[in-house]
């Protein structure tokens, strides 16, 4: 019967003009389509942000290069940072959460489908506004272009005197608007997870991805909002003549830093927690073992959520806080390492003694494990206030957080792409292209970001558009730029794989990985209503129970 329904749908879609299909995608409130829209939106911005990074690396390939002007360089690093955080990482993670959470908890859609669409289009509007600044940034003053104040826009760079025109306003409003979108999606995810679970899906049986999405959304509620508040204050300063960040009138530039980093540091955890979720879903399936230490994983995540709220000022050791603040933020930053370490041991515990299958998703997961560990270690170095005084604002910091964001977040994301692509499109991604993508990307990543630590230790500051020869930075900068191109080629292979597999990939079937969560129980791609009958679950691995009625998990829980 279901095949009849599908055949009818297929006949309908082939006979229709493309405008109608487009219209359907624009007005959609289906969580799966919105998830795909989020992911495609993020992929477009990933390419844009990647091009900006490449332009910067070409500029820095040798001393005294004049590939771009200093002004353009400032715009490039501002746009690169803002784009990658707000318009790549956030939307792609929300996209996966949107697509997967209802399927994993046995629901037919999110709790608020229209709010879901509204949130996506707000994010899209934010991305559009940010890039519209290239056209509209000059405003009536004929000054400025794209935002050039850095992704954290420290005061007083954003004051009218130093940022005439509208470029900073485009930055502010783009971030504010996409922030409202994020809050909407976070509210939606929490309401979905708490109120829409299928019968039997107790909180203690929820897939870890749903649990971690819950924690991530909770974190979004209390971390994006301080940024929104600070952006409103900045708008008051710029448009109504307020003095929040105006040091000439008694205002404080340091309080902007506090407000920004109260958002900025938990934001890292907002981004990494969904990646922990991908790891926790993919590693067990490719180790053929249930996740090791499920309750501890949940506890550690909640713990990370709480502790991450009290570490922000480790970004500000160099502004001259008192020794108690320095000690406090050093200590809390180190404490975050404990629950994170627990997670790494749990993934290792899952792999230990398992029957490992080295398909592309698993390769990226293993890459994540090693690289995220190293990123954590340089993080502990930088969390130590005296060490940070030496290296804050240097390329060592840039290397550290790119190790987290590329070596951690992006690797986990690639794993997620290879793992769920068959569910989303109904076709497998090409395995040889996938392996080529993985190895090229690993090589490019380590060429770039391992080597980048060295000029940092040798004293090369971030955000400089060029440098003097003979300081020992020349060779390492050349290698870093070469690594960037290797990564760029790997990304192109990935995009080619996405397109090629969509048309030519092997048919996936419902459950190509022999997995255990509910999204694999429906067809690929899932029907609009997800589940014909709402499933009932009795354990953490409902599909295992169905495949092995003689030995279900529910017997042991």
């Amino acid at each position, binding site marked *: 019967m279901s095949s009849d329904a599908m055949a009818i749908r297929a006949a309908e879609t082939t006979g229709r003009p493309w405008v109608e299909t487009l219209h359907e995608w624009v007005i959609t409130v289906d969580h799966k389509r919105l998830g795909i829209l989020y992911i495609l939106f993020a992929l477009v911005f990933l390419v844009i942000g990647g091009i900006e990074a490449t332009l910067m690396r070409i500029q820095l390939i040798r001393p005294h290069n004049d590939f771009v002007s200093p002004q353009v360089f400032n715009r490039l690093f501002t746009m690169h940072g803002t784009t990658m955080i707000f318009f790549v990482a956030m939307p792609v993670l929300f996209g996966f959460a949107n697509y997967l959470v209802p399927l994993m908890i046995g629901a037919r859609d999110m709790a608020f489908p229209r709010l879901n669409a509204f949130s996506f289009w707000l994010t899209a509007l934010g991305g559009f506004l940010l890039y519209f600044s290239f056209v509209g940034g000059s405003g009536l003053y004929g000054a400025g272009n794209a935002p050039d104040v850095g992704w954290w826009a420290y005061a007083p760079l954003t004051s009218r005197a130093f940022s005439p025109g509208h470029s900073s306003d485009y930055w502010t409003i783009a971030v504010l608007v996409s922030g409202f979108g994020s809050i909407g999606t*976070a509210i939606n995810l929490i309401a979905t997870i708490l109120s829409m679970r299928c019968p039997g899906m107790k909180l203690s049986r929820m897939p870890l991805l749903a649990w971690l999405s819950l924690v991530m959304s909770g974190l979004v509620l209390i971390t994006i909002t*301080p940024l929104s508040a600070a952006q409103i204050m900045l708008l008051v300063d710029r448009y109504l003549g307020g003095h929040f960040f105006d040091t000439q009138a008694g205002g404080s530039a340091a309080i902007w830093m506090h407000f920004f980093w109260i958002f900025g540091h938990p934001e890292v955890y907002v981004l990494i927690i969904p990646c922990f979720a991908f790891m926790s879903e993919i590693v067990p399936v490719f180790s053929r073992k249930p996740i090791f230490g499920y309750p501890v994983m949940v506890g550690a995540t909640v713990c990370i959520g709480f502790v991450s709220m009290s570490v922000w000022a480790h970004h500000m050791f160099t502004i001259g806080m008192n020794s108690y603040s320095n000690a406090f933020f050093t200590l809390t930053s180190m404490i975050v390492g404990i629950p994170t370490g627990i997670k790494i041991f749990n993934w290792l515990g899952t792999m230990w003694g398992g029957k490992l299958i080295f398909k592309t998703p698993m390769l990226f997961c293993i890459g994540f494990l090693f690289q995220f560990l190293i990123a954590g270690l340089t993080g502990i170095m930088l969390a130590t206030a005296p060490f940070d005084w030496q290296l804050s604002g240097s390329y060592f910091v840039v290397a550290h957080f790119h190790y987290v964001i590329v070596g951690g977040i992006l690797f986990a994301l690639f794993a997620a792409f290879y793992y769920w692509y068959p569910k989303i499109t109904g076709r497998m991604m090409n395995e040889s292209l996938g392996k080529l993508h993985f190895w090229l990307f690993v090589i490019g990543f380590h060429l770039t970001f391992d080597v980048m630590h060295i000029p940092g230790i040798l004293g090369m500051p971030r955000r400089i558009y060029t440098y003097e020869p003979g300081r020992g930075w020349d060779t390492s900068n050349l290698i870093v730029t070469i690594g960037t191109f290797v990564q760029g080629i790997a990304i192109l292979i990935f995009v080619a794989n996405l397109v090629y597999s969509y048309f030519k990939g092997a048919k996936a079937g419902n459950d190509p990985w022999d997995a255990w969560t509910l999204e694999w129980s429906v067809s690929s791609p899932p029907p609009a209503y997800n589940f014909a009958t709402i499933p*009932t679950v009795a354990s953490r691995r409902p599909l295992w129970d169905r495949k092995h009625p003689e030995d279900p998990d529910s017997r042991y829980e």
Partner: protein
Amino acid sequence: MSAITTPIAQAPGDWTLPYHGKVAMACLIIAESAIFTIFVVAYLFYLGKSLTGPAPREVLQTPIFYTICLLSSSLTIHFASRFFARGKRGAFLGLWFLTIVLGALFLFGTGQEWHRLIYEHGLTISTNLFGTTYYSLVGLHATHVTVGLLMLGIVLLFGLAGRVGREQSARIEVLSMYWHFVDAVWVVVFTVVYVIGR
């Protein structure tokens, strides 16, 4: 593969989850609280840091009457939704209308105070740090009162048209959660601006 489609577990007898509207409103309240926290922190941080006058002590008058209005509107909306759940339409509409009147009175009070500050004392948002933090904190709260009044007004219109039935009871509850939150925020703003701030 056909075996996969047969669930082996039976549905548990009573499977109830919290109403999604209430969960969402609770989340919104958490998010809004974080926004207000930042504005309150800014207000407290900048107390006494203005380089020029006027200072809060010289110009602010404690709005006791309007505060009582707003806080008592929490009671009226609570009883309104109680009556609504019991199906007493007349009492519901009366108390609901009273809530709107009390909220509007509060807004009028804020407007009056702003008018006095601007025209008698020359304090605007750009005068000094006090003006900047005061108008943005109180203004943010007044914005929330305004949004709340609009939503209450919509319910009143539909209620008068007889379009609000008992099946909307949960939604009325959600709206009253928001209104209670707006009142609770005023307690904080009042304490910060009129008690600590002077």
